[in-house]
């Protein structure tokens, strides 16, 4: 049985604190987001390694860029919704185009803010950032991925966007799993269909596969933690050998994981059924992250049901 771990956001801040103790060149920049980024202990222990710019996301990204231009390893931490919309031009020009060593941490990403509503949701971040040259986009699924991506970010030396949710996540990966930015993780292999999930929806896909197993349907599950650069090789290999592909993401159905998979299937002439699960183009229903994901067909039970439909079973 998989254990329920910590919120990935907590794992992010704990990992960063550990790394920053060893490396004084690591600087965190916050926009009144110290509390929501779980960075209060960081600020207390390493006050000289945290810069606070107040509620000013454009400035946060610009200042982060300047620090990186001066040789620092910078983590700019701000709610994903504001960071990737308000400061999009700073991300595009000052971080990506200028190719600086800035890791942008989108906290409380996707629909983590639940009832706070659409102003606080970031279901656009994959789509907008995918179109920006030189951006790497990562959505860690469990505590293991959440920690590993930070360790790798320190020596990544290029623009990086990492989004984190704030609910405790189930441990999916067994000890010894290898994590590399840009390389997906095959969680399990099964001959019937492949479910590709990213970030916090991986847990739901995994639980769906357990339900399907009871009906003797065997899924492959891929954790596509890196949305860009996309692990085309693994995806194409699985889509060529599956009866159907189901993608699951806490993001708009436009421009994210699903459409990336659709494009690869179409452009590689792969004959496989595809279903994209995500947030539809509508005024989003109000609710907690869990309730909203359930509502939009991303409960484990619904994912299992849709998988069966795809396989005509």
């Amino acid at each position, binding site marked *: 049985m998989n254990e329920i771990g910590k919120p990935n956001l907590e794992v992010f801040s704990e990992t960063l604190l550990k790394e920053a103790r060893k490396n004084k060149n690591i600087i965190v920049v916050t926009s009144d987001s110290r509390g929501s980024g779980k960075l209060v202990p960081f600020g207390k222990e390493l006050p000289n390694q945290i810069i606070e710019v107040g509620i000013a996301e454009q*400035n946060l990204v610009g200042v982060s860029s*300047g620090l990186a231009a*001066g040789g620092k390893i910078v983590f700019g931490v701000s709610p994903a919704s504001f960071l990737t919309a308000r400061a999009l031009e700073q991300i595009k020009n000052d971080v990506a185009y200028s190719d600086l060593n800035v890791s942008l941490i989108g906290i409380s990403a996707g629909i983590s803010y639940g009832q706070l509503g659409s102003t606080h949701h970031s279901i656009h971040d994959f789509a907008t950032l995918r179109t920006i040259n030189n951006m790497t986009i990562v959505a860690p699924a469990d505590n293991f991925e959440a920690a590993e991506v930070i360790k790798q970010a320190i020596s990544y030396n290029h623009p990086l966007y990492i989004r984190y949710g704030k609910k405790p996540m189930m441990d999916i990966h067994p000890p010894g799993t290898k994590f590399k930015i840009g390389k997906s993780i095959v969680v399990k292999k099964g001959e019937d269909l492949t479910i590709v999930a990213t970030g916090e929806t991986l847990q739901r896909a995994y639980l769906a596969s357990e339900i399907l197993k009871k009906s003797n349907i065997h899924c492959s599950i891929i954790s596509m933690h890196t949305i860009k650069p996309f692990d085309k090789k693994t995806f194409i290999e699985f889509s060529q050998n599956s009866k159907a592909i189901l993608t699951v993401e806490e993001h708009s159905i436009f421009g994210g994981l699903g459409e990336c998979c659709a494009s690869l299937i179409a452009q590689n002439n792969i004959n496989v059924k595809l279903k994209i699960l995500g947030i539809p183009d509508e005024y989003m229903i109000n609710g907690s992250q869990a309730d909203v994901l359930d509502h939009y067909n991303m409960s484990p039970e619904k994912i299992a049901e849709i998988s069966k439909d795809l396989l005509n079973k």
Partner: protein
Amino acid sequence: MNEKNLKKKSLEYRKTILEIIFKSGAGHTGGSLSCIDILNVLYNSVMDISPKNFPNLDRDHFIQSKGHSVEALFTVLCDCGFYSKKDLNTLNQFNSHFIGHPTKKVPGIEHNTGALGHGLSVAVGLAICKKIDQKNNKVFSLLGDGELSEGSVWEACTTASKYNLDNLIVIVDRNDLQITGKTEDVNPIEPIDKKFKSFGFETISTNGNNISDLLSVFQHVPVKENKPTVIIAKTTKGSGVSFIENQIDWHHKVPNKDEYESAISELNEKLNSYE
């Protein structure tokens, strides 16, 4: 470098700006001519930045936030030996790195700019970095006056003040014009000095097209310990060429052959007066 030589350089630089804009068929003529004396004094008399020390971060830094006046910056960097005139002559050609805004692919460029309101935050980040590293280098940033309508400029100012960045020197190229017309008609930004003061800056005003005034003002920065400085440099858009000065349509107008030759001959006359 002495004042007379700097003055001659400013005239030579103006000729080069007009030449590369004329030959390449594009460029921001008015703004490049308004800020050229500032860049001249900065690179030749004030800042510790050279092709030799550029790869090392232990030096001064310059961020040109008003990126569109890139022809002025390219001209000065070329003269400082960052690249050859032959390279500069590829301006605006297919596959050249010399494009209409600063990019780091051109030697000597610190940061990619062009979208307004970005440079000051980056300069603030660099200045904070110098403070953390306990280095005495300074960070200079040139802003346009029309650019001051961007809210992000003022976000950056709050942080510059919070972190007591007396190593940050901001220069506003106050030429009074922007693409649509006079700044005070388009969207009034005065009183600029009071605005910066209220954001925690020390302010100085000077004539930004006068070499001796600029030399003197840069000797007095930072004005006050623990305070960022802004120099409001009063300039003339199109400065140095009579028929380009203060003309709105010369924001990014390219001289035709007659205009080019007339401008060069006017500048040559001024140069001859130094001989």
